[in-house]
């Protein structure tokens, strides 16, 4: 399976996916850390994360996937929402909370 297909499956399998450097517990970049904080502040407890530092193919492939050259990247319901600046702005205006509220619920 090629990298673009792997990414497509990841963002379609999990309602909320964050591609980041490091993990929520140990972020390896200030921008990734900020997005984790923003998601928590927006009331999201569960989200799937992909540590791009552990997978060079994903790290490069994710930049092509959404035509977006930087990491972190957030996807909700398979759709690219934005990077750090955009997520921060959307949180301030309340738009992010709306988008996250519309995330698919996983079957229990």
């Amino acid at each position, binding site marked *: 399976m090629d990298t673009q297909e792997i990414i497509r499956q990841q963002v379609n399998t999990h309602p909320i996916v964050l591609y980041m450097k490091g993990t929520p517990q140990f972020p390896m970049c200030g*921008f990734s850390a900020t997005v984790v904080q923003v998601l928590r502040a927006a009331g999201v407890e569960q989200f799937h994360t992909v540590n791009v530092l552990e997978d060079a193919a994903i790290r490069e492939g994710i*930049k092509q996937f959404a*035509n*977006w*050259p*930087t990491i972190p990247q957030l996807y909700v319901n398979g759709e*690219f*929402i*934005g*990077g*750090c*600046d*955009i997520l921060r*702005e*959307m949180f301030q205006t309340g738009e992010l909370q709306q988008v996250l509220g519309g995330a698919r619920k996983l079957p229990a």
Partner: protein
Amino acid sequence: MVTPESVQKGIEAGLDCAHIEVIGDGQHFQALIVAEAFSGKSRVQRHQLVYAALGERMREEIHALSMRTLTPEEWSQAGGAAQ
């Protein structure tokens, strides 16, 4: 080293800006970009326009460009204030 001035020139070369300010330390940059081209575009599309203006340089050299992207109208509503 990449300077704020070179980032600004790179953006201006590919995007008609009504106003632009870039500050930074060579590693991290913050840009305020006001352009008519942003009208009717989402935030993601606006940032993609700026990334496209910077082209390959973004990929290779600028690891961290934070930006605010406004239309001239939004900027004047915001009081035309510097960042």
